């Protein structure tokens, strides 16, 4: 196997096993265009058409966005713009025979029709029948305005002059912008075209799932290994598919495995130092952890990218574990405005490509994601795109659904709830109770889209989802020790005091009553005299609630919720870092980093006595030797009262051994946890016993 891979690695990289790719039209090429809104009929698409009177300009062509190389005219009135604008470019071909496949790629806003030598070969965002007065079918906005879309056709090129003619259609006469850019490459044999770069899912201490998408079905291999130079393991798909989802298992905890994706022809997503699975630390391990938290990010616009860039700068330059991102937590509304697959491509995959191929992404459903997804049927793009644990595979109790689930990372238990359609769902609430009362992890972090406290662009006093999450789910979370609750929805940043027990409206919040700890009513900033929030063995209460919904846009609002220490109308994202602080103590710090790279808010929860277990002092009148036991045990009674019986129960209360003396044989008893009942004439005692 290794020999085979050694051979494969000398094969050239992405797509180059395709023979003779020829770039026929470059990106930003010079085009002729007609921007007078006139009717051109059909002749204008032909090779012979005389376009000598048309203007010339380099792509990107258009208006309204400010990123055009050539600004075209929309006419005299901004409320009565031309509907159709025309573009032409010719190119020469010496020998069309090897140019069997044409890959066309375009930026188009809004509708587009492409003709090759007079034949319509590609129409996008247009009705089946259209003319120069026909509007585009839908508005292209956000990240989709800059997204490259593509289509592959069989080459029908002619020797000599060929022409690509394109018409761009407005969505309406008052729409603000149009955009057009185009490139075209010819291939003898088509390369594997990756339309969605790899992204890591289901990160655990033993593996992860790698997903990606290709334009055409391909049977792929995923190669992986701990050294970039030697990817010595491989798994292979059983059949050719376009939606690739490969689970890598059997890995070591806290270890980096580089990956590469190939066919038998060679790698088509080559290995690189920034693409890997880094497995989780062992469950329960106290170690440094960093999570990047993004709420309402999916605008696809420059704001989203600025926020992203500031985190990338932060994680590259921080002296504390640079370049370490253990996970991305998406708080919902990941792709505006309806969470369609195309919107996910332009607003999530095209924006976070670099981080998605190295850090596992987790998410909760947002209301905009929910426009196209159905939690009841687990259908729609959101559920198709993400893979989450339904069976308790990564710690926690099985939920049976990807709508709500939990997972462990190091000594943190993450609980993800669905607040869009299941905020009144008793099943989710029952699951939450079972799950949170099942974990022994040192930290509990919950996330769901609708914030329990907010006076941002959404009001937690008014909206049913927010009210329900606060009044139904918070009591369960708080009574079981939740430390941090993350939400989005409001397009701002709001961060609470150190709270417990506030389930009413904002005006019922009482700092004296609803904050906990000596400084729970202060900032929690350890760098100020306020000091970090404290959680200890004796005072385990207190949680911080964050509404972080400004990773893509901000919306004006009153921002005056009384439970909030900080309320900021700033673009940004949150960073959660957990690190050790001496023996049996850790700090959980959250920083809000804005789009100027400043940390606008910071707090720390300092937790002590994490592992302390105190058993109640009891006046035992007996001694068990040995415990843990193997073949047998002896119970010595210290009092004068004689022992009457010993009974051993298994985990489900069945009797597995017994004796009328102080000696108990464990022959045939399987190793495990048991309960020993010790009965004397005057008392009955129960004791935990481990059989090895």
């Amino acid at each position: 196997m290794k020999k085979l891979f050694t051979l494969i690695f000398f094969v050239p990289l992405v797509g180059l096993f395709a023979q003779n790719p020829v770039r026929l039209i470059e990106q930003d090429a010079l085009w002729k265009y007609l921007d007078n809104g006139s009717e051109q009929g059909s002749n204008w698409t032909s090779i012979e058409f005389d376009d000598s009177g048309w203007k010339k300009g380099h792509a990107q062509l258009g208006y309204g966005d400010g990123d055009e190389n050539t600004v075209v005219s929309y006419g005299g009135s901004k409320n009565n713009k031309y509907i159709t604008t025309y573009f032409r470019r010719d190119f020469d071909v010496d020998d069309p025979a090897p140019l069997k496949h044409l890959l066309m790629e375009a930026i188009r806003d809004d509708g587009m029709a492409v003709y090759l030598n007079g034949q319509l070969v590609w129409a996008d965002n247009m009705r089946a029948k259209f003319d120069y007065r026909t509007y585009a079918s839908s508005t292209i906005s956000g990240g989709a305005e800059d997204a490259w879309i593509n289509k592959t056709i069989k080459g029908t090129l002619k020797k000599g002059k060929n022409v690509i003619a394109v018409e761009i259609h407005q969505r309406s006469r008052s729409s603000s912008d149009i955009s057009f850019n185009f490139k075209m490459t010819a291939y003898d044999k088509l390369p594997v075209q990756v339309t969605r770069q790899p992204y890591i899912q289901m990160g655990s201490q033993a593996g992860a799932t790698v997903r990606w998408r290709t334009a055409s079905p391909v049977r792929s291999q995923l190669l992986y290994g701990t050294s970039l130079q030697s990817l010595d393991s491989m798994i292979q798909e059983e059949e050719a598919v376009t939606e690739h989802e490969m689970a890598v298992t059997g890995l070591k905890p806290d270890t980096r495995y580089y990956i590469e994706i190939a066919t038998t022809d060679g790698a088509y997503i080559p290995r690189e130092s920034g693409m890997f699975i880094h497995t989780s630390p062992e469950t329960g391990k106290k170690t440094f952890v960093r999570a990047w938290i993004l709420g309402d990010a999916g605008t696809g616009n420059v704001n989203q990218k600025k926020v992203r860039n500031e985190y990338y700068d932060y994680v590259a330059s921080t002296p504390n574990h640079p370049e370490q991102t253990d996970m991305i937590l998406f708080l919902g509304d990941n792709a505006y405005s309806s969470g369609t697959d195309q919107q996910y491509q332009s607003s999530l995959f095209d924006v976070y490509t670099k981080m998605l191929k190295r850090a596992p992404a987790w998410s909760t459903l947002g209301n905009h994601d929910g426009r196209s997804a159905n939690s009841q049927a687990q259908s729609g793009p959101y559920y198709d795109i993400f893979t989450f644990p339904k069976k308790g595979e990564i710690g926690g109790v099985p939920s049976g659904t990807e709508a709500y689930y939990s997972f462990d990372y190091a000594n943190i238990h993450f609980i993800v709830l669905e607040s869009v359609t299941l905020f009144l769902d008793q099943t989710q609430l029952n699951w939450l109770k079972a799950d949170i009362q099942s974990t022994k992890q040192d930290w509990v972090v919950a996330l769901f889209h609708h914030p329990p406290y907010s006076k941002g662009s959404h009001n937690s006093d008014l909206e049913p989802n927010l009210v329900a999450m606060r009044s139904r789910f918070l009591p369960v979370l708080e009574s079981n020790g939740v430390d941090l609750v993350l939400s989005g929805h409001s397009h701002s940043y709001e961060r609470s005091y150190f709270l417990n027990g506030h389930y009413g409206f904002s005006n019922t919040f009482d700092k004296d009553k609803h904050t906990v700890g000596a400084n729970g009513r202060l900032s929690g900033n350890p760098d100020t005299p306020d000091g970090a929030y404290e959680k200890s063995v004796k005072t385990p209460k207190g949680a911080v609630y964050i509404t972080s919904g400004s990773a893509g846009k901000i919306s004006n609002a009153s921002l005056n919720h009384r439970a909030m220490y900080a309320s900021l109308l700033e673009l940004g994202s949150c960073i959660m870092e957990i690190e050790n602080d001496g023996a049996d103590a850790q700090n959980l710090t959250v920083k809000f980093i804005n789009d100027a790279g400043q940390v606008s808010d910071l707090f720390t929860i300092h937790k002590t006595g994490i592992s302390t277990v105190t058993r109640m002092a009891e006046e035992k009148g007996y001694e068990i030797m040995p415990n843990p036991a193997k073949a047998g045990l002896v119970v010595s009674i210290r009092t004068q009262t004689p022992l009457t019986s010993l009974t051993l129960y298994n985990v489900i209360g069945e009797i597995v051994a017994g004796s009328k003396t102080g000696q108990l044989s464990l022959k045939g008893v399987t190793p495990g946890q048991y309960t020993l009942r010790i009965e004397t004439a005057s008392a009955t005692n129960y004791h935990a016993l481990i059989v090895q």
Partner: protein
Amino acid sequence: MILFKFFLPFVAFLSWIPVGHTDLHDGLLRQIRQKTKEIEAHPKDANLYFERGYLYQLHEDYRKALQDYNVADMLGFVRSILAFRKAEVYYLLRDYDSALSCLKWYQERAPKDVLTSLLESRILREKGEVKAAIPVFHHFIQEVEDLTPENVLEYSELISSNGDLTSAIEAIEEGMHRLGTRPPTLLLREIQLYSRLGAYDQVEKRYNELILTGGRKEHWYYEKARFLHQIHRDDKAEIALMQAGIELESLPDRLKNDSAMQELQQKISSLKKEINPK
């Protein structure tokens, strides 16, 4: 029934939201306003009416949604999904016959859309035709690609509302098989149904399953003990209760001091006294 179950709690929530605030979904209203502007610019565009109708539907303004859907229809909206949306809105408006009529039209054009079976079953149930609703829901359960515990519970409740508790349990077992996991949420429902049937051994078995498969066990031991005490099996109840205490004792102090665990400690003490008052 389903309406009652799903929407009454919602209405209850609305009732304690301050009066005078009807704008429950700011974002939706903004989008509706935007869509209205687009409609003003293109009053003959059926797509726009369909899109605004869906926004109204999300905003729970079902009558306006229906109006827009009807205009879209009149203007020649060609996608059959319009009929499904209308069926949903009619259902929410409790016009079940119209809902069924739209749904039937849609089903003929999109026979593979399993969500139609779910909606049809709910409509039939609301019409009081529970017997007819059961096989329709079963079709949904069989065909839906990604089943959820909520689906299984709804199906089981439908069957049990027809008085057939055994089949309701079988439906849960079938659902768990299809899910590939046995979530506590479904096991707890089985416990309820077996209790109603008086099948106490099965109830105990389910508690044992929860104990064996869960991470922490103290809560399930307590629930098992409480159940065993209720059916007068105090010898067994005592063991389960002691096991609950031992589990609780072994927890890290920070968990022991959580209010939920302190409450459990009190419950264990109370039950101990009930079982053994001496």
